[in-house]
């Protein structure tokens, strides 16, 4: 496989994740997973360029993004647990208490 194939794959991953954020109306967990998928697509891009250019900095950037993704998911899960305790549901459609 060439680099273009890998980059196409990561772009498809990213678009799938965008679709997951925009079209999902069922569960807040799916939104969180879509965000993780986006960051994985970013990592994939960095790693492809890193291998292609034989440069370690891309892998370093991927590690940083991985750490950010881990912190993001940990924080997101903590917030979702708090939400579940107060609301009793994880459905997106009920998160309509504030409008205007």
């Amino acid at each position, binding site marked *: 496989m060439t680099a273009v194939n890998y980059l196409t794959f990561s772009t498809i991953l*990213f678009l799938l*994740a965008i679709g997951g*954020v925009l079209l999902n109306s069922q569960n*807040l967990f799916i*939104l*969180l997973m*879509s*965000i993780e998928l*986006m*960051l994985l*697509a*970013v990592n994939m*891009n*960095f790693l*492809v*360029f*890193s291998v*292609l*250019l034989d*440069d370690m*900095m*891309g892998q*370093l*950037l991927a590690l*940083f*993004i991985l750490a*950010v993704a881990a*912190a*993001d998911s940990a*924080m*997101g899960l*903590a*917030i*979702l647990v*708090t*939400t579940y*305790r*107060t*609301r009793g549901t994880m459905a997106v459609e009920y*998160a309509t*208490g*504030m409008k*205007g």
Partner: protein
Amino acid sequence: MTELGFGSRLPYGSTISPECIPIPSSIIILMIDSTHEGDTYWSYPISLTCPVIGIMVPLSQWREEPIISPACGAQTNTCDDIFQSSILLRSILRAPLSAEHFQCTEMAVTESPFFALAATLGGMFPRCASDLVTISVAPERSSLCLHPSSGCTSRDVRPSEATVKYSLLGGTSSSILVHGFPWLYGPPGGEVQPWGILNGIVESKMQNSAGISIAPVRIMAGIVFKPSLVPYHQWTPDVYEGSPTPVVAFPPVTSKVAASGLATRIFNLLSPLSGEWHLLPEILAILSTILGNLIAIAQKSMKRMLAYPPISQIGYITIGLIAGNPSGYASMLTYTLFHIFVNLGALARIALFSSRTGTDSIRDCAGSCGQDPLLALRPTLSPSPLGGFPPLSGPFGKPYSSWCGRQAGLYPLVPIGPLTSVISIYHHSKIIKLLMGERGGRKLATPRTINKRIPSLSSPHTPESLIELGTMPRVVASTTLGLTMNPVTTTARDNIPNQIFAHTATILMDFGEMSSE
């Protein structure tokens, strides 16, 4: 200029010494919290002391010349120091209100000062960000701590909903933002420094390639979420409405100030890449200033209504950013300072007011002047600088940003300031009329009496002294800052962030285009 080599680590390290102060403070708060049982109000003096020390460091390191690292371009200068000081100032102003709120609600959790310190630290990093690693991690570092601070300590439904919306939308925008960075890293040949990226693009003649064109669009789409420019503004009203009133302004204002510093860095990097880069922020600035003021008219909640003037104010800040000239940066910086004082002042006064009325509804505040004239005067004062009544700070900032727009040839942006000021004055006048004249509001409750449990902060007077203490400097600053803005403007005009880099980069890109032809 102060040229620093790779070997001189000490002077280079001193540029990030203000960032190093919140780290031990956060660790101390966590360690004491994990070992100490019982009262946790001690964490607030620590969270107040840290930004006070932090703000002294850039003032003691005050310099006229930027520190340049040969590897990274411009690292930091006085303009960045002012940005950093404004974030620390924001943190100082937040502490009394937060302490008062958690004292009243008896929820003195240490998470709140900890997240505030961590978010302050994250907001300070973009000012010295000069490579892709720091630029990509710094906004995440800030926003991850701001998400829970908008309402994690409350067990109510609305704060949790606001936090969920903020964290999920913030995560999405950050992911879109960082998705642009691989396309700046890979095609130029594995470069992470701005100099290297532009050199790589010129050498590989990729100025017009699809990958390089897509990168600025993604970065722009990600970065405009943080200052909540229209149409990425939806999280701000929800956070304002959902969060407890005394702590509500911390996440949006910190996010806006930090994003302004980061946007300066990123736009300096993007401007040589595309000649039309300013078209998108120009449209967003116009939309923000107009819609921010128009939507505010239709609001029924006082807090939600106060969320929209900051959206329009970020439009004025963006005008200075797009202008890209010394006056533009000066206007951006001065308007950011206005933004901090005016919004925090407005919310502190609304916090005092809503603690007596027990509601956020605008209609329930009708005729409050008859019951307590002094209390009604507080929210009356807050719309004045927001609306732009002279001689307060608003009328000085708006014409200045419009003038900078005209100077930079951004003619569509010039009439926006006066036009939106009229709309703003109209709807703020409606609120003043409601408070002063109309009837049908709720009866005001008597002020609460609570035990003073913060010995180092509380004054021997009223129980609301902490909020009043926090309100006083904001009122003074929001009313008089317009008259005393000249030193800030002069300093900002003389110390432009990355001016040398942007200028040289533009020459480099022009040279690349000529050689490719």
